[in-house]
């Protein structure tokens, strides 16, 4: 079984994003970038499927400018067999990404596509579901457990009320939640080896997808600041303040 893992280069999760003074966007100059944490979980799951003998090949793919090859190399160092870079400098929406990925799915015919449930920059939580729709596949979103068995994949999903398990016919699309696994670190020898693994580049423009923007970014602002609070000395002072000052309890 071939597994395709789309990954995204994003701001490092430890870094707090700052808004540009002209309010046009978030300022990413000289900001530490990394693989989106949910994508790391997706790569890890694909590699585990391969280690367990359930997958034959793991292909990582990233869409973006040249810089995202750094994250593809990381994916190769973690254990992906090959990488595909869909090159574009355009600012893309989830729908565009899903359409480009759908073209790749058509070419590569992976039985399983595993992606992160959301990226921590745009926080959209759309791409996997859209890809499933465009490729007419089943979807198992927010996965905390993935079990592959004869022609099916069982996905346990983190939902608002608890855990829901669904059985999907293959081919399928799965999106990862935080508790699916704990991603490994790439070892130095594997980082060296990754340099020799194949990384193919495809120009997005050759994939025949209309990448015209559908959403216009008007402005980006800082969220409203909270007034700074006070440190209270005791539990009784806290309770008094909550009753008489904040008036949130009676």
């Amino acid at each position, binding site marked *: 079984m071939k597994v395709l893992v789309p990954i995204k280069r994003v701001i490092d999760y430890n870094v707090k994003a700052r808004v540009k003074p002209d309010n046009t966007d978030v300022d990413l100059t000289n900001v530490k970038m990394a693989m989106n944490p949910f994508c790391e979980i997706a790569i890890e799951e694909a590699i585990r499927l391969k280690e367990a003998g359930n997958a034959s090949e793991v292909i990582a793919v990233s869409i973006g400018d040249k810089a995202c090859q750094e994250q593809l190399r990381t994916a190769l160092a973690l254990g992906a067999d090959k990488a595909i870079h869909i090159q574009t400098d355009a600012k893309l929406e989830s729908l565009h990404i899903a359409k480009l990925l759908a073209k790749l799915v058509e070419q590569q015919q992976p039985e399983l596509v595993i992606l992160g449930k959301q990226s921590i920059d745009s926080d959209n939580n759309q791409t996997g579901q859209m890809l499933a729709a465009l490729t007419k596949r089943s979807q198992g979103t*927010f996965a905390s457990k993935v079990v592959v068995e004869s022609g099916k994949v069982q996905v346990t999903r983190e939902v608002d009320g608890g855990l829901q398990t669904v059985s999907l016919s293959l081919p399928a699309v799965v999106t990862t939640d935080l508790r699916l696994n704990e991603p490994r670190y790439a070892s130095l020898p594997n980082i060296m080896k990754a340099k020799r693994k194949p990384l193919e580049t495809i120009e997005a423009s050759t994939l025949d997808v209309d990448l015209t923007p559908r959403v216009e970014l008007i402005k980006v602002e800082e969220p409203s600041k909270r007034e700074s609070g006070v440190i209270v000395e005791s539990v009784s002072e806290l309770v008094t303040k909550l009753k008489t000052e904040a008036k949130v*309890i009676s």
Partner: protein
Amino acid sequence: MKVLVIAEHDNGQLKAETSKVVNAAVKVASSIEVLVAGHNVSEAAVSASEIDGVAKVHVVDSAAFEHQLAENTADLVVEISGGYSHIFASASTTGKNILPRVAALLDTSQISEIIDVIDSDTFKRPIYAGNAIATVKSLDALKVLTVRASAFDSQAQQSPCEVETLSFDVTNTLSEFVSIEQTESERPELNAAPVVISGGRGMQNGENFALLNGIADKLGAAIGASRAAVDAGFVPNDMQVGQTGKIVAPDLYIAVGISGAIQHLAGMKDSKVIVAINKDPDAPIFQVADYGLVGDLFDMLPELESAL
């Protein structure tokens, strides 16, 4: 302009979020219809018909929709989408699962988790874990969006509007429901409770979460948790508050033994009043807290319970 709101329900009952999604919808258009798709949903449908501003409720009642699986529910929404200018759903795990599938099938870019409506095609939404607020304008003819319910008020009640039953034959050959492990709780739901008390890694284990029970009882509070507490297995996943868990904005949020990572703050910093209990005076949670209490939670919690 006409908005279709996908109702949030558990078959038996309509979820309070639906009324808040309608509240967002009335800011966009005057004509609002609601779709209730599920199994044995007549009571939920009546509740939907009583939300002020709703002109019509469409009901699809079939075992095929009992678990609201994305594959056939999306097909259903696409089937009835003609004539609407907007499709809204709550940014719950159900809405997040189904709506992007609908958007892709209708070839429209979805706008996720709006917190404000500027006009019928312009919306505000948080990005980067809420560290920035983007104003975005949809250029698509049909707008598909999810709504962060905690950012909107509930609608008033009205006398019931028309409820129409649709039949829609679907076979879902792609996916099948296997089981649900529901977290049973007598407490109010996290995203509907006026008070939320959450525990973090500082709670040390699951048993210690019992220290929050008495306080929650007295305040009518829901109990939440940080990711660290969920990952460590102290409490179930559906209690996680944060960027990738539940977003809450209660009148009072009490964070106990939680450091205040960006990702946790993303889920609670719009609460009206925030209280933090932490033994580390430098914990970042104190930067967003209205009232901070520095000390050992194992001393503070019993004291708090008896002081209430």
